[in-house]
């Protein structure tokens, strides 16, 4: 029982077998426990498969409308600057319907931490094309594979965020292997520590597996992340533009 976390409730996750959300929830809870910030943390949950994350996290939470988490988090953090506020968002939430809220929260250098779960597909609504769906990837709305001519190109969010002066820390990690999970935890801890140090916006993009909507076994879905996603979405920390300090 020594691995029971204060920052997770004892609710069973509703996530599908092999889904990465459970792993990522746990990493966040471990970091919050280790930094001893559970009592002052407020999480903002997205619309998507993680919409019920408020039932799993054992600290204050707000559930935002689809894509609006960075705006909601801005409102919380500006009123309670000594609390720790993070958003947990998927690729449809952050990179499609909520791209405006995300970009501008970064541009304002809000002192927030965003956990961006990129699994290249819409999960909860039944496997439609996401803004990060790979070219050629079959989804419920790209039945013959995503074609750039018909459906455009996948967005590289971390690279885009790193061009914005307000970004303090931008990294892309993955959870497809135990080693990568450990690296992801380190990145999450850095993102939360940055907020405690008032450094500004931290983005941790996490490549994740959605076996159900990829039509793969849990093991094959992790292999797909490694073999298909990582080449297009390179892992590592992105250098952020020189922070412009103005009065």
């Amino acid at each position, binding site marked *: 029982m020594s691995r029971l976390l204060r920052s997770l409730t004892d609710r069973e996750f509703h996530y599908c077998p092999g889904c990465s959300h459970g792993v990522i929830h746990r990493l966040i809870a471990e970091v919050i426990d280790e930094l001893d910030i559970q009592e002052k943390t407020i999480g903002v949950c997205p619309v998507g498969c993680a919409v019920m994350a408020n039932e799993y996290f054992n600290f204050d*939470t707000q559930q935002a409308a689809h894509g609006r988490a960075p705006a909601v988090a*801005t*409102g919380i953090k500006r009123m309670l600057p000594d609390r720790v506020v993070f958003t947990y968002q998927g690729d449809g939430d952050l990179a499609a319907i909520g791209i405006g*809220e995300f970009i501008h929260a970064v541009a304002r250098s809000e002192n927030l931490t965003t956990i961006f779960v990129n699994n290249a597909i819409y999960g909860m609504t039944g496997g439609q094309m996401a803004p990060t769906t790979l070219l050629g990837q079959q989804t419920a709305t790209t039945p013959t594979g995503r074609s750039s001519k018909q459906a455009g190109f996948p967005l590289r969010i971390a690279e885009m965020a790193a061009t914005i002066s307000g970004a303090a820390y931008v990294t892309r990690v993955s959870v497809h292997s135990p080693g990568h999970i450990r690296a992801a935890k380190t990145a999450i801890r850095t993102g939360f520590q940055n907020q405690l140090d008032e450094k500004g916006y931290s983005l941790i993009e996490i490549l994740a597996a959605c076996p159900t909507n990829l039509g793969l076994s849990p093991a094959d879905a992790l292999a797909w992340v490694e073999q298909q996603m990582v080449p297009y979405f390179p892992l590592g920390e992105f250098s952020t533009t020189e922070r412009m300090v103005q009065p």
Partner: protein
Amino acid sequence: MPANLMKGNEALAEGAVRAGCRFFAGYPITPQSEIAHYLSKRLPETGGVFIQAESETAAINMIYGAAGAGARALTASSSPGISLKQEGISYLAAAELPCVIANIARGGPGLGGIQPAQSDYFQATKGGGHGDYRLIVLAPASAQEMFSLTVRAFNLADRYRIPVLILSDGILGQMMEPVVLDNSPGPETFAKNWATTGMMGQRGPNSIYTLYLDPEQLERHNIHLQAKYRLIVQSETEAVMEQVQDADVLLVAYGIAARIAKAAVKQTRRLGIKTGLIRPITLWPFPSQAIFGAARANTRLLVIELSAGQMVEDVRLAAPAGTPVHFHGRTGGMVPSVDEIVTVIRKLADIGDDIDESFTAVVD
């Protein structure tokens, strides 16, 4: 107390500050811009936060976050911008987050114009967003009321945990009038033990959410909301009644239209026509009982609006069976003159000249 010459928009903004509002997020749009201009200076002086948001959706969701964190929060816009906020307003109502939203309305539909209108009445009072919800909707008719009703709006929002919408218009926002910055009744304070302020060693987790996947739970939540709305109807409905006791022609108008209607009542009384005015202060809850009670046998109701006829539907529902309900309105930023309304009243009182039927309809 001395009066200050202020624009209605500035009076609303100062009312918010004196009501304890410490968070504003908004997006530029005419004719509400002075609210943002004023608060960008004034809020930082009080330790508050001003954010120029990247969009109306972002602004309303910043309000959601700040209100959920326990702050008194305001956003303001004008008609097209209020349309964009509707998603957030539905979520605020569902999550029972107290906040104030000001609509300095302009002509529509679409981009419309920048001149005043009251054509957002349906959107304000019937719910522009999805789901069974209500907002308290207040209708100021002067710069003074832009101030005082804003203070009241924050108190009502906290008392009932409900978003309150101030339905104003481009005239009230832009015109300058003397305003007494009277602090009474002033801000009331409410315990917000539901707010997500961090547990801080004091309690278990709070969560602000609007998802109920279990239909029984969602119905229970709706029943709870409806019970709250009934309580508001019983406790907060308000209208100003002027010279209604003996009125043969009873005007019903709110906001700037009521100012014009009031002048028309004064003129027609001089002509010997018994006219009166009912001015709803709360558009939701609507003062149906006041209208029902004021209409005597032979009373004609005349609704004046800066719209093609929206509140007239509620007046028709409120009126006793058989009471004629007439309507006169202008749209698109056009404002009826006092003489125009006097002409309509004279016609209704059977002493008048021909009236331009294009703006006037009998709705009974």
